[in-house]
């Protein structure tokens, strides 16, 4: 057991900063409402240090609260696919040669109406991102980047055509849960066509977590700060049965 709590300036003081809007007018009553609301979240102690009117019927609050909430750090399991020791590009290529013995084929796209290609480009394009080359540069990989706004159906067809080992999907827009709809549709299509087991299915994007991805039927999900070698490591280890 290693119980931890938020830290302001003293161990276990439980200090947290919050800010939010309430759909009520600014004023003493609003501030008291803000305070009660925060207390109802289980804070022991709460100071509304600022309030301001956003309009006649909305008001903004800055609050510092103190909580006794804690978690056992030992029991926390990091759940980020890109988190820890990934292999570098050369290592991945070596690994493919050693353990797979043929080129690994990956297909990527930004699906649905999503046109945010910078993320998938960062993973796939030659030039890569932040000093990490993209998958196109991996000699032992064959990488196809289909770009923006690719319908799920089309992506699957293409993956079949090039005999892809892995499909990489990027989802950036999350408003109204579009990404969820879109990600779900993709997996359902695959399953309907009996193809789910043919591909390693990977999804990424700044608001994508591994948990969510797995829940929706993907093999893995990658969030912000992912680099090509993180994904490559996952793919090849998965193919080699080491994951």
């Amino acid at each position, binding site marked *: 057991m290693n119980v931890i709590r938020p830290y302001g300036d003293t161990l276990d003081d439980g200090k947290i900063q919050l*800010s939010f*809007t309430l759909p009520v007018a600014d004023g003493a009553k609003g501030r008291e409402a803000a305070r009660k609301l925060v207390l109802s979240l289980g804070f022991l102690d709460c100071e509304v240090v600022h309030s301001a009117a956003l*309009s006649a019927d909305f008001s903004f609050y800055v609050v510092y609260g103190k909580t006794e909430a804690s978690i056992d750090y030992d029991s926390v399991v990091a759940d980020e696919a890109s988190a820890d020791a990934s292999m570098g590009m050369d290592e991945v290529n070596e690994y493919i040669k050693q353990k797979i013995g043929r080129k690994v084929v990956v297909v990527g796209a930004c699906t649905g109406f999503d046109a945010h290609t*910078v993320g998938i480009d960062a993973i796939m394009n030659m030039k890569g991102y932040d000093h990490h080359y993209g998958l196109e540069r991996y000699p032992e990989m064959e990488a196809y980047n289909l770009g923006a706004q690719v319908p799920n159906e089309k992506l699957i067809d293409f993956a079949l055509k090039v005999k892809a080992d892995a499909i990489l999907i990027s989802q950036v827009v999350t*408003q109204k849960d579009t990404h969820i709809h879109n990600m779900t549709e993709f997996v359902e299509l695959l399953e309907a066509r009996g193809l789910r087991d043919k591909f390693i299915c990977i999804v990424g994007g700044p608001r994508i977590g591994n948990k969510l991805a797995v829940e929706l039927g993907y093999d893995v999900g990658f969030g912000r700060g992912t680099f090509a070698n993180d994904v490559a490591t996952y793919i090849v280890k998965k193919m080699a049965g080491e994951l």
Partner: protein
Amino acid sequence: MQPKLHLPADRIAHARLLATRIAAPVQDFIDSHSSVTVERATLRLAGADGANADGVPVPNLVVDQVRAADPALLEDGVLLRYVNALLRGGDSVETLNRKIAEGFDVMSLPLGDRAALEKKAAELVETGMGRIQSMREQRKGKLDEHKDKNNSPLLYLIVATGNIYEDVKQAKAAVKQGADVIAVIRTTAQSLLDYVPFGPTTEGFGGTYATQENFRIMRKALDEAGDEAGRYIYLTNYASGLCMPEIAASGAIERLDMMLNDSMYGILFRDINMYRTFVDQKFSRMINAFAGIIINTGEDNYLTTSDAVEKAYTVLASQFLNEQFGFLAGMPAKLLGLGHAFEMEPGIKNGFLYEFAQAQMAREIFPEHPLKYMPPTKFMTGDIFKGLAMNTMFNFVSKATGQGIHLLGMLTEAVHTPFMMDRYLAVDNARYVMNNIADFAEDIEFRKDGIMVKRAHSVLAETISFMEDIEKTGLFDAIAKGMFADVKRPKDGGKGLEGLIKKGPAYFNPFETYLASALGLGK
């Protein structure tokens, strides 16, 4: 504002000359073409409106009917057929619209007397253009009434709930907080729809459908909020996409004040066919110009994919081109809200000086243009506190270089579309900074051989050499070769090419003729 950069006037003039030379062949192409959306926009100006039970808008129905009858007929312009139906049926525009929505085919009637058709069309032009003219006057009246009450630069806030009624709430709160301009962001991918949805809408993703009814709802709300706040609130929406001229038409009719409208955005960033886009942008801009609507161009987009330091010249080159295409569509400088952005990586040593220099450069090269300045987006992260600081620096540069239209940066840019409180914090920050440095611009000079002066000179030089290349290559080929924004767009690729129309010798479009003459455009 005193110039600070000592930019050589002859080089600037040379760049403008290059822009005219680059634009000229494109303009020739444009003048001999129309498109389905140009035709639909014409119909809208004439009064065509409404949609059938499947949501297909009346203007689309009319164009489709003409095409279905004989695709070759499109070259005469579609208005003729609509006017014909009006005359033959003796209906009001409203009645005809309803009939068409219910299934009536305008092609079911043979063409009537040409002179009568032209007369009726001239009446429609008078009514339609009169309506827009009166909107323009209303705007002027309100601006005069609330003279000097707006912030300078204008503070521009977006709403993007997807639901027009929720947007109204957010917009009103934004006005209360100090916004001058409200832009209703469009739903994801609307630019790829080859029609303009109809009626009020409540279900968009990342934005709200641009529809004429939504325009009307927001216009009314902003007039109210503005009267209460004692200043005019500029309403903004997006023309860009497969329906540029139609949205421009609806915007003109509902008194929008600004529209996103870039001569190449659709090509580069939405993969819309280049011929189609060039044709569409011209007609849409003529409408914008006549309606007194400021256009906002999209140079900021270059920097979301390319590096802002390296590719600064693409922004300036695009500004020259957007200016030129604007002039060719009859737009005066004061309606040309040329775009640029504060998008350098925040870790760059002296990055602030480069941004300052470039913003000042835009100001000096385009002195009468209400420059549209975009906030940091690309290097925003979940660190909202860092983001707020970046926005503070951006607000500083904007005020210190006298920008015209200031898009407020959101501290949560990398997280979600703006919460109401995010917008409040943005306005509050801008007002603090801009008041606190109110006259800084007038109070300083740049060192003659300093970093800022050198930066501006070198960006101008790079721009000129880039534009020389483009002139040599030709704009169509330059785009095809990926000289802009690192994307290659084949000339016959992209969406919407099938909607391009070669004008026939009998092409009839009295609205275009009227606009061209009102805007002083020689044919």
